[in-house]
Structure formats: C-alpha cells, structure tokens
C-alpha cells in the first residue's frame, strides 16, 4: 500500500538519505529514531507536505500513485482518502476556531449528518455526542488527540501516518491513545506507520520496526526480535540506554558522542564514530541494508553486532539508590501546602519532606500540581496556605524574609528546568553563565568555571561556547553545573530529561545520580516517567489533582502500588 524507494529529503543539504519502507494493508510499522534522525521529515514527505525549501527525491507510492513530484491537485485527492497524517501535538493540531464536529465534517465523504459525526466520535471512544459542539480549548489533551484522530480518519484513508501521536500526552492517556490506535487499525484493516522516539511504544504496538539514524534506516525487523537481539550497534545502544521501569540499574550507559549530520556520513556507516565495533569496512563505503534471516535487515557489516553491547538490564542491582538518613530534621519540609488559581485548585494541602542527601521522586501528570509545588519551594509562587521549611528556615513567603536570609535560601535551593534550550541565556557564553551563578555563592565557597564543567563531565574549553553551539544533552549539563555553582543543599529537577533523547537521557540521569551520591545534594525530582523515577529516587511521592495519593520507597510504590491511580500509572507503562 505504501512503498518508498530511495526516498531522500534535500534542502541546502541532505536531511534524509535513502529510506526504503513498505507498509501493507492491516500492518502497523514503526519508524523509530532520535531527534534529528529525519523521521518526521520522512512522514511529511510521504504526504507531500515538506516544509518550504525542502524537496523529496526518489519514489513514494501510495496505493500505486506516485507522490514525489506530484501536482498539488493530484495530492489533494490522495490526502485524507488514501493517506492521512496524525500529528504530534493535540494542542496545536486543531483549528482553534472550529468545533470538534466541524473538523470531522469538513473531510467526511458524502453528506454529513449529526448521526455520522456521532458515529465517528464513538469510533475513537468519545461516547458523548455533545463533544461535537465543543471547541478544542474546551477539551483535554487526550480528547483533542481523539478528535484529531477522528478527523484524520474522516476520509477513510487506507494508510494512517501517526507522527509521535502520544508524546505530548500524560502516561495514562498515552496508553489509551495507543490502544485506541491499535483497535481502530484492526477494525478498519488499514495500514499504520507509527513514528516515535520511544522504543517501548514501537515494540509494544508495531508488527515491524525500522530504526532510523542520521537520515537513513539502519535496522528493520519484527519488534520482539529487535528487542531481544538487535542486529545493529545503534539499536543495542539505544536499548541499553533505556531506563528500566522494573528495576534500578547499577549504571546507566548512554551512547557516547552525538548524531552526525546526514550529509557528513553519506559515504560511510553513519554510526561509525560512536561505535565500539568500528572496523575498516565501516568507513570504506556505506554499508547497505542487508537481509539477515527472515524479515530482518541490518546496515551493519558485522554479523554479531547485537552481542557486543548486551542490554544492561541484566546487571541490575536493587541496592541503588539507598534511602537517606530518616532521623534528624528533614532538609525540606512541606506541610499542608495550598494554592488556588481562580476556581482551579493547584495544590490542595500537600505535605512531603526531603532528607539531606536524599532524592525524592515526585510523580504526577499535567495538572497534578507538581510544577506549582516546585515553584513554591523556589519562591516563584507564593502559596495561599501551609508551610515550607528549608534547613530550619521558614520560606513559605519569600517576601517576608530579610535580604540576608533570602541570599541564604538562594544558596540552599537551586533548580534545573525541563528545556535547556530555553533555560539558558542564548546571548551568554557557558563560562559567563557559570561565573555569574558562582558569584552568588558564599565567598569562601566559590567553584571555578573549569571545575564546574568538569563536575558535569564537559571539557573546560566549552566555557567559550554559547548554548547554540551545544547539543541538548550538553546544554542540560551546563544548566546542572549552573545550579550546582552555589553548592545547594537541595536541587529541584523539573523534568530534566523529558526533552532529551534516550541515549543522552542516560548520561544526564547518571550524572544526577552521581551528584546525589558524591556531593550529598538532596533532590526533589519531578517527572512523569516511572522508569526514570525508578533509576533515580529513593522515595517516591505520587501527586494527583493537587493531593498526595501515595508515598513510600520507590520500590514499594512501583512494585506494590496501593492507590488506584498509581496502579493505573504502573500498568500503563508495562
């Protein structure tokens, strides 16, 4: 139904270099890759909607129609009816001025009736026909994604391309949407090309998985086989970097280096510079995708590439991380914290504590109040009620502190935000940002820029660079170094790895673990990812709609969840 041969996407330089993919009717194929691998551009090329300035080369046939180079008029007939694209972000994908029903009606073939729209909504699990009259801003993320799916399916396409359809959603909603996608696919017998950065999602949902790297497919095969015995070092590296939700690993290992540009590695194996197994054959010519057994393809010249990096889950140890000392006064003590925004209760009496040197995971989905809690501790939000004590100091209302105390609090608690591309000042060099931060430290306690960079595993020469010249993982390291510059007793990490690729995520998590272990920094680690919390936190607090619903050691919370909501969270990732 879909067949691409030698698909290239070319702008000023080559971005996607030779993708061969087939999707048959009734089949779900996964296209997995990290950011910059070219997977989203591939998706856009398949529907003839590349961003301005880029063009597709090669061949893309959808149900026998050639898409590459086709006229807009021809493509309009193909899109929606033969091939449809579901995009990533349900918050930006729908026309803010149109109702849910209008989105479906505008691409329904034939006459539209209220019954038909209700039927289409029911197909995506919306049983309330009144939703048809709602506007996107009145619906939750999960509901919007369902409406978007119904809209994408309204023209009854034979093939659906889903580009990261769950990335912007909460864990439990992700699970529901994936199950829905699977159900709809089976009921309609259509082909689905699922594009994702999440290996677990791909393996769970797809019949076949293709792994993309630097603009090309490096490995392809049935999901389960790929997971059990990867045949390309990149795939096994990715699998090794994946934090396990089941147990805490002794060491988290990422892939060294970063993804090269597709045009720089046109004539060689794209992974050669990061590969342990690199041999002369890897850089002499570009290794083609070659069959290795039934339905399996790899672009590695070695026959036993998968065994070189055994998945590290085997070396798991349950002793890490250990709980901090439970006696004495906690470092951070939050009691009955309340905050309302208009009619919305962000925090409805939250209590928790963090002991010195302890890492506490704070788990919850969007709207649970976890960010409001973090901002209250940081003094960015003044709570309506309750108390926050930090190292014996009442910091509930920052404005009430005298300047000396405020300076002290500033040195006690620091923060690492989610997105390092926006949390670093783009106009400042790394060195200037770090020097500025360490100037706030107590006079006898200053750490030099070079030392800070070394602490987070970056070369001292990076001090002269600006954030733009760094990769996402390196930027997050700089952000961590900046937070550590005043030697804080408490580090608040607000989803610090959520915007990072798997291979980089492992490095940053390992770094944070080391900081907790070696510097004795206490951490409040906010995340939606249970696998991450398993790796980093000794204790875990689960937040739901502004209230703590469960609290305990991480292993207890994840292995024997007591609250219904926690059980749903845990089952969503298993």
């Amino acid at each position, binding site marked *: 139904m879909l067949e691409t041969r030698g698909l290239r996407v070319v702008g000023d330089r080559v971005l996607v270099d030779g993708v061969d993919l087939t999707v048959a009717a009734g089949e779900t194929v996964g296209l997995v890759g990290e950011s910059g691998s070219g997977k989203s551009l591939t998706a856009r090329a398949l529907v003839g*909607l590349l961003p301005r300035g880029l063009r597709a080369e090669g061949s893309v046939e959808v149900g026998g129609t050639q898409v590459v180079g086709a006229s807009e008029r021809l493509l309009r007939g193909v899109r*929606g009816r033969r091939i449809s694209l579901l*995009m990533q*972000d349900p918050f930006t994908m*729908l026309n803010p001025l149109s109702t849910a029903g209008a989105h479906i009606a505008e691409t329904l073939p034939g006459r539209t009736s209220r019954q038909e729209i209700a039927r289409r909504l029911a197909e995506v699990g919306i049983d309330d026909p009144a939703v048809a009259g709602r506007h996107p801003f009145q619906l939750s993320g999960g509901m919007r994604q369902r409406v978007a799916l119904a809209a*994408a399916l309204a023209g009854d396409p034979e093939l659906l391309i889903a580009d990261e359809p769950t990335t912007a959603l909460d864990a439990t909603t992700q699970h529901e949407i994936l199950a829905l996608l699977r159900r709809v696919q089976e009921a309609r017998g259509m082909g689905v090309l699922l594009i994702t950065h999440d290996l677990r999602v791909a393996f769970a949902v797809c019949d076949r998985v293709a792994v993309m790297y630097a603009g090309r497919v490096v490995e392809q095969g049935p999901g389960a086989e790929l997971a059990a015995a990867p045949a390309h070092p990149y795939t096994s590296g990715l699998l090794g970097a994946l934090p396990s939700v089941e147990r805490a690993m002794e060491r988290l290992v990422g892939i060294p280096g970063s993804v090269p540009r597709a045009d720089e590695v046109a004539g060689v194996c794209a992974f050669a510079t990061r590969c342990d197994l690199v041999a002369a054959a890897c850089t002499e010519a570009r290794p083609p995708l070659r069959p290795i057994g039934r339905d399996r393809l790899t672009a590695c010249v070695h026959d036993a590439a998968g065994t070189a990096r055994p998945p590290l889950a085997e070396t798991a140890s349950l002793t890490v991380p250990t709980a901090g000392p439970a006696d004495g006064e906690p470092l951070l003590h939050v009691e009955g914290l309340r905050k309302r925004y208009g009619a919305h209760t962000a925090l409805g009496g939250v209590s928790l504590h963090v002991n010195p040197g302890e890492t506490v995971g704070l788990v919850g989905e969007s709207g649970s109040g976890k960010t409001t809690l973090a901002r209250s501790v940081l003094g960015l939000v003044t709570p309506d009620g309750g108390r926050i004590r930090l190292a014996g100091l009442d910091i509930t209302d920052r404005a009430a502190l005298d300047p000396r105390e405020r300076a002290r609090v500033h040195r006690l608690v620091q923060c690492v935000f989610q997105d390092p591309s926006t949390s670093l000042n783009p106009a400042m060099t790394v060195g200037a940002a770090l020097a500025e931060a360490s100037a706030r430290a107590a006079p006898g306690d200053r750490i030099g820029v070079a030392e800070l960079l070394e602490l987070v595993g970056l070369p001292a020469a990076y001090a002269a660079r600006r954030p733009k010249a760094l990769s996402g993982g390196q930027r997050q390291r700089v952000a961590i170094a900046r937070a550590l510059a005043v030697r804080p007793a408490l580090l608040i990490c607000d989803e610090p790895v959520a915007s990072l690729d798997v291979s980089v995520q492992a490095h940053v998590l390992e770094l944070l673990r080391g900081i907790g272990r070696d510097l004795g920094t206490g951490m409040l680690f906010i995340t939606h990812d249970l696998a991450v919390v398993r790796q980093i936190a000794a204790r875990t607090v689960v937040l739901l709609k502004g209230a703590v619903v469960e609290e305990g050691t991480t292993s207890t919370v994840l292995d024997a969840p007591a609250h219904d909501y926690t059980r749903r969270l845990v089952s969503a990732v298993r």
Partner: protein
Amino acid sequence: MAFVARRLAAALLLLGVLSVLTYALLALAPGDPEQVLLGPRPSTAESRAAVRAQYHLDDPLPVRYAAWLGDAVRGDFGASLYSRESVTSVIADRLPVTAGLAGYAIVLTLAVGLPAGLVAAMRRGSPLDRGITLSALVALAIPPFAMSILLLYGFAVTLGWFPVFGAGETFAERVTHLTLPAIALATGQAAVVVRQMRAAALDLAGQDYMTFARARGVGRARYWFGYALRNTALPVLTVGGLLLAANLTGALFVERAFGLHGVGELLVSAVGQKDLPVVQALVLMGGAVVVAVNLLIDLAYLAVDPRVRHGAVAA
C-alpha cells in the same frame, strides 16, 4: 450580555469625558465668539452685551456646559454661528457623502488588501510576495491628495471615464462620482491592510493545524476561508475598523480634491470660521464614531473567536 452592557457603559463614560474636554478646550481657545456672532455689524458695547446675554456667554463654564449637554443629548447642538441653520441639519446635509465615500473605500480596501496580504504570506519569498509587498510600500508612500490628483488627471480629465467634480444625485451617479475618491482613499489603506494581513498570516503558514488540514485533504475553499482567513481575521478587523472610523471623520484631502461637500470639508471651514457649535458637534461625533466602531470590533471578536466568547461569559 453583561459583557456588552459593560462595554456600552464604558463607551458612554468615554464620550462624556470627550465632550467635557472638547467643550473646555474650545471655550479656553483665544478669540471672542461674540465677534463672530456679530459678524460684520459694528460692535458696540451694547450689542456685544446683548449677544453675550443671548448666548449665556457670561455664565460660568460648568453651567454653560450643562446647558449645552442637556440640549446635545436631545439631539440639539444649537445653531451654526455662521449659517444660522441648526447644527444637526448642517451635519446631516454633509453626512451621506462622507458615509458613502467611507463605506465605498473600506469595501475596496478589504476586497484588495485581504486576499493580497494572505497570498503574499502564503507564497512568502516568491516573486508574487515581493511584488505585493513592494506595491504596498509604494501605495503607502503616495499621499491621498497626490493620488487624487493623479486619478483625476488620468481617469477624469484625460480619459473622461469619471466625473471631475461633485457627488451626484441618484444612486448610480453617486457611485460613479465617488469611485475615484474612494480609490484615492483606499490605496494607502489597502496597503496598511496588506501589511497587517501578511504579518498575521506569516505565522499561520507554520501552524500545525494548517498542515494537519492539508494532510487530511481539507477542501481548498475551506482551507483558505475557514482556516487561513478566519484565523487571521482578528488583528485585521481591528485595523479595518480604525480605518473606517478615520474615513468617517476626516477624509479631508480627498474631499477637497474632488470638490465633495463632506464632513471633513465642513470641519475645516467650521474651524476657520470659529463656528464653535459645529466644531463641538463634529468632534463629539468623531469620538462617537470611533467608540462605536471599537464596540463593533469587540462584538466581531466575540463572533469570530469562541475562546473570547467563553472567556467573556466566564468573566
């Protein structure tokens, strides 16, 4: 509804403040009104006193203002000091020409400006975009009176397609008479709308919902009207409304150039003649027009954007 009521109340308050300010400023302006009232007649102390008594000029300012306001809300702005006719009928005499011109011009402005701006944004960087942007710049640089003279010379004098002077009597005549003035007025304004529309639509091209609409095969008409035009309408509506208000109150140069006896023309002569009642009424009318147009824009926001609608209901 509470939203509309609140907006109306605010509009009335604004007009009240405006009326006080214009009344006070004009009263404080140099020049004796009694001199104007007396006209060419010899001004003796007695005749001046008689005039002052007749027009209550010796009363304190707040008293005079209250009396004037009391009449004004009943639609009586007094009599023109110059023509002795009632101000209301003087203005009513001029208004149809100006309203026709303003309406005609705004229709032309939107009919040309919206599609041109939208196409320029969607074909960003193409020769078409460059052409449209450059034309807009040129149009913006030509002052309306120069454009008027150019049009008059080209289409009225040389080609003889349109009349040179006056506003015409029947509807058809009115349309032909107002075509050139409306074009002269619309040229610069269309350029403003083009630039606004282009700016608003530039971000639109990169929006996910635009891509998603195309990816699922939404029809062309729906794509351009339901998606592109509707999502860029709000900022452009605001500009369009303000242009309309400006046309209604002061299309002065164009009225002069084409010999149209409109409101702008009236205002200039009234100021020149120190015809205070007329000036006051016109300033107040101008204020009322701006306030009314803004109110209409707010209502249009409500109609176009459901988020504003629900926000307004919730607030």
